[in-house]
C-alpha cells in the first residue's frame, strides 16, 4: 500500500463532507474557495466575482452527492462554477471582460522597485487584454492561476487537447505582444 497522496486525502475529505460532517465540509470549502473565486474573477471580472463564487460554492456543496468520483472533486467543482459563469455571461451578453481593477499583492520595501513591478504588471495586463477571450481564459487559468490542464479543461468545458493548443497559441501571441528592450 502506497503513501497517501494529496488526492487520496482529498477523496477522503470529500467522502466525509458528503455524509454531512461539518468539519470536512469546512475543510473542503477552505481548499476550494480560492480556485472557484479565481475562476469567477477571470471569467466575470472583479465586480461580480465574489457573489458568483459564493453562489457557485453553494451549488457545489448542495450537489456534492452528484459527484461520482470524490477524487475528481476539483475538475467537477470548477465545471459547476464555470457553467455558472457562462450562464451569467450569456445573460449579460458580455464577451470580453477586461482585467481592469485587478488588485495584486502590495509591494513592500523599495518604492522604486515597486514602481518598476507595477509598470511590468501594467505591460503584461495590456498584453493579456489584447488576446481573444478564448485564448485569454486559458492563459489566465493555466499560467496566471496555475490550474492544471485537466482543471482548466473542466472549468472552460473544453477538451484537454484544446486547452493545450490554445495555451501555446496564447503564449506565442503574448511573445509578440510584449515589446522587448533586449541588448543581445
Amino acid at each position, binding site marked *: 500500500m502506497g503513501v497517501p497522496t494529496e488526492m487520496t486525502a482529498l477523496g477522503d475529505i470529500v467522502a466525509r463532507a458528503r455524509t454531512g460532517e*461539518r468539519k470536512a*465540509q*469546512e475543510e473542503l*470549502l477552505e481548499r476550494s*474557495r*480560492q480556485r*472557484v*473565486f*479565481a475562476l469567477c*474573477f*477571470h471569467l466575470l471580472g472583479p465586480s461580480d*466575482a*465574489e457573489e458568483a*463564487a*459564493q453562489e457557485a*460554492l*453553494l451549488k457545489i*456543496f*448542495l450537489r456534492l452527492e452528484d459527484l461520482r468520483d470524490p477524487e475528481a472533486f476539483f475538475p467537477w467543482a470548477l465545471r459547476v462554477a464555470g457553467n455558472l459563469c457562462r450562464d451569467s455571461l450569456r445573460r449579460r451578453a458580455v464577451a470580453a471582460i477586461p*482585467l481592469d481593477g*485587478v*488588485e*495584486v*499583492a502590495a509591494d513592500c520595501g523599495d518604492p522604486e522597485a515597486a514602481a518598476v*513591478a507595477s509598470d*511590468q*504588471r501594467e505591460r*503584461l*495586463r495590456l498584453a*493579456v487584454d489584447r488576446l481573444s477571450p478564448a485564448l485569454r481564459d486559458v492563459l*489566465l487559468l493555466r*499560467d*496566471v*492561476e*496555475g490550474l492544471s490542464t485537466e482543471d482548466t479543461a473542466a472549468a472552460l468545458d473544453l477538451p484537454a487537447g484544446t486547452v493545450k493548443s490554445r*495555451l*501555446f*497559441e496564447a*503564449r*506565442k501571441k*503574448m*511573445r509578440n505582444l*510584449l515589446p*522587448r528592450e*533586449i*541588448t*543581445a
Partner: protein
Amino acid sequence: MTECERILERLAERLDGPLEEVDRHLAVCPACRAEWQALSQDFVDLRGLKAPPMPPPDCFWLRYELAAERPRPDLAWERRSRTLQRGLAAAAVALMLTAGTLLGWCALSAATRPLQELTPGHGAVVTEVKPR
C-alpha cells in the same frame, strides 16, 4: 524558416519544461537566449495578475442549511419530462406533415383525374362520347 525562428516558435512549449533541441540551441545562440530569458521572466511576472484572495464567504453555512432544507428538484423526472415533451412535439410535427402530404396528394389527384372517371356521387356530370 531559419533555425532561430524555429526555436523561437517553440519557446511557448519550453515554458512547460526542458526541451533538448531548444536547450541545445539556446546554449549557443545569445539572441535566442536573451529572448528566452525575457519571455520566461514575463511568465513569472504574469503570476502578479492572479486573482486577489477571496474574502471569507458571508454566512455560508447558514445559507447552505437554508438552501439544503428546500426540496431539491427531481432532476431525473425533469429529464424524463423534457424527453416526453420532445417526443410529443416530434410526433405532432410528424402527424402534421403526414396529414399535409395526404391532403396535398388528394387535392392533386382530384385536380388531375379525367372527367369521365368521376362518379355522379361527386356531383359531376358524366357524359359519354360515342363514336359516330
